[in-house]
């Protein structure tokens, strides 16, 4: 039964990935101007455009380009960037590592903080601490992240000179230098994602707290702290894992604003660049990576929920 559920989800994931590939392909067709136009810029003439288009294979019909690409993808070949001529795997390679590094560090810091604060707020609902946490998280959710990031740069880099204003990595950095270099984007992203996770942890636990068997335990006189840690948290863990998974997916694919402000070479910015240079294979490769990450994370979260939920583990 459990295996069946997992297999079904994997099938759904693969279907999603295929649909994404078609959607991205169709959408990029809608863009005005093609890669040849972008490469030649203001200096394009019809003649040079035609030459370049032919060389880039842009004169072939769309569906043929799609199937060629899909075939290559199955053999693990991501193709060649139409714009720069580099292989896409080489473009993505280093950035993939950068994105994972940043996402990993942010997750490492924000997940424990969020769960602890969320639990704390849930243990004392309505207290001042709870209100401060609620209000603080709401405030950070509500302000655009480029505003938070810019204020951080002005304070810590421009005024105090404590931290570098950009997150440019060099090859020979020690781990401490690396942490210092990444401090600003890490802090910004921790603020952004924690707020969401704290709120959902709190909400999830309070939600379980209102269920009859917990109410029963409260009536029996079990201390509230123990109820939350032993019973409520375990029961709420499924939804919490889900929120964490979604935030991780966001850290991989959606942090373009932070990558731009801190000049951090990550995947999200690469994808935006791909759209702007009409580099179709590059956009598709990035979209595939994001989509696969999303599907995998959700899969892990779902399995986590199933495993952590006794009722789902042993269904009727």
């Amino acid at each position, binding site marked *: 039964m459990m295996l069946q559920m997992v297999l079904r989800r994997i099938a759904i994931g693969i279907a999603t990935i295929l649909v994404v590939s078609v959607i991205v392909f169709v959408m990029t067709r809608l863009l005005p101007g093609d890669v040849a136009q972008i490469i030649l810029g203001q200096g394009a*003439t019809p003649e*040079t455009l035609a030459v370049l288009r032919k060389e880039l294979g842009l004169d072939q019909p769309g569906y043929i380009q799609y199937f060629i690409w899909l075939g290559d993808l199955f053999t693990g070949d991501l193709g060649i960037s139409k714009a720069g001529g*580099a292989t896409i795997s080489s473009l993505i390679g280093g950035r993939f590592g950068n994105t994972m590094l940043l996402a990993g560090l942010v997750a490492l810091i924000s997940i424990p903080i969020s769960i602890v604060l969320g639990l704390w707020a849930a243990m004392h609902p309505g207290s001042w601490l709870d209100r401060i946490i609620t209000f603080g998280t709401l405030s950070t959710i509500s302000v655009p992240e480029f505003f938070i990031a810019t204020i951080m740069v002005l304070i810590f880099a*421009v005024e105090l*000179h404590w931290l*570098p*204003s950009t997150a440019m990595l060099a090859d020979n950095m020690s781990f401490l230098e690396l942490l210092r270099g990444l401090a600003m984007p890490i802090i910004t992203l921790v603020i952004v994602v924690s707020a969401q996770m704290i709120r959902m942890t709190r909400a999830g636990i309070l939600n379980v707290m209102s269920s009859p068997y917990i109410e029963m335990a409260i009536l029996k006189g079990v201390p509230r702290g123990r109820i939350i840690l032993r019973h409520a948290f375990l029961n709420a863990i499924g939804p919490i894992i889900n929120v964490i998974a979604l935030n991780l997916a966001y850290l991989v694919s959606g942090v373009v604003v932070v990558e731009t402000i*801190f000049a951090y070479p990550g995947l999200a910015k690469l994808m935006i660049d791909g759209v702007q*240079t009409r580099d179709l294979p590059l956009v598709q490769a990035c979209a595939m990576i994001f989509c696969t990450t999303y599907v995998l994370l959700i899969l892990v979260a779902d399995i986590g929920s199933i495993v952590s939920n006794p009722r789902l583990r042993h269904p009727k």
Partner: protein
Amino acid sequence: MKDKIKPRHTPGELRYTDLTAYDKGLVERAVRSGHSRRDVLKLMAVTGVSMATAQNLLSTGGEAMAQTPKKGGSVRMASNLHGPDDQLDPPLMTSTIDYTRSRVLYNSLLQHADDLTPQPELAETCEPNADATEWTMKLRQGVVFHDGTPFTADDVVYSMNRHIAEDSKSVIKSVLESVQEFKKVGPHEVVAVLKNPNADLPTLLGLFQTKIVKNGTTGDGIGTGPFTLESFEPGVKSTHLRNENYWREGANLDALEITAITDPVARVNALIAGDAQLVTQIDPNAFRQIEEADGVTLLSTPAGLQMGICCLRNTEPGSNDDFVMGMKYIQDRERIVNRILKGKGTLGNDHPVSTAHGADYCSELPIREFDPDKAKFHFEKSGYKSAELYVAPVMSGIEDACLLAQANCAKIGFDLKLKKVPTDGYWGAVWMKEPVNVVSWNMRPTANSQMAIQFAPGAAWNDTFWNNDRVGELLTLALAELDPAKRHAMYCETQELIHNGSGMVIPAFSNINDGIASNIMGMPKVPLGQLGGCEWPEFIWLA
């Protein structure tokens, strides 16, 4: 930052950096011991340097002479744009970051001085035949590529003919149209055979795209330039080390990192925080921030960076003379220069020649006044009550200038709608297609090329579709006219024709505004691109 063409030829001129260490010392001693400019000129005349060359030495030497350059150190340069399409192949280069890398890795045949005269680089001489249809270049000997291969005429012939080949995709293919072919005459001698006379050829040989690569290669970073390629990740950064076998004296810096920070606010913050030492494209809103901060300098180079609104003359509403006049009169030029460009720019007069072009600028033609009443009169006469203007942030301040025009139009009852579109795809999808759109042109080295590229009848980039035979005639005649007064009169007439007749609204020209760390010395000031025409890598040093 697009392609550009370069100035009238005065080949064979020395610049300060071309001098031997001994001669430099001589000049420096003279300057520092408090001699006047005239004394120094006299001194050099004694040592056998021609007066013109001496003048040139002084102007190109300038700052560098104030102190002895020091070797060592490294800098990071942050441009405004980069992406997966970053190029090391010169014919395809279109952005400042590419141009800078081309200056770091390769050399041209000729290069530009601050005053835009062509200087020898890989070509020691560049001489025309009598009717300027064949140009013979003697190449420098003893130059080697980064991998040790000697530089010869084959490399030049290969690199240059790539632009004009039938299947060329070079950005400057049409610019080099007049060239039939580059032919090898000897191991270190090349001749350019032209289809028709072109006195401006030397300027073309110093374009960003006309860098010399090794025979048979397509931009793998192995050139003859002052730095070697250490690493290159498109859209991330490139790193470079000094080329110790350079044919000139060699760069002062040990190493360079070239990258971009696309967010304008972040770019300025990186400069002030010390994370980048040279940054391009400073937004006018940040001038004050840089001027007030310690350790950084705003580098504002007067240049004819054109801020334009194209009203296409072959379609509505630009085909209507009164609509175009209305658009010209509604421009509050003073305010654009003073408030939007914060004084770092010059007034435009609806033609593409700016004061940066020197004597060829028509100062007799009065600047068109901001006159809402006349604008109102013309708009009403045109019958249009509204128009749609396509705006993309193709240069700093252009959106703001359009907003100002919009606000002023609203006050006289004309509804100027702004349609904001992204910069990517702009040149293909909007420019020269939508009836009213913004445009930005980098400065071309001569008034003639500046006007010809946009206004010669039938020119590929005639972006207002305004064809005037007299303009074409004047541009051709002026090239052959040697009397400065007569030539000035011709250019004046051309400018007046464009000013009145074309669909081009040019309220202002912007300076090129960059920021550098204050300890950077010896910055070149070539006005053809960011950071001194991207010429800085070889020449700067850290105090």
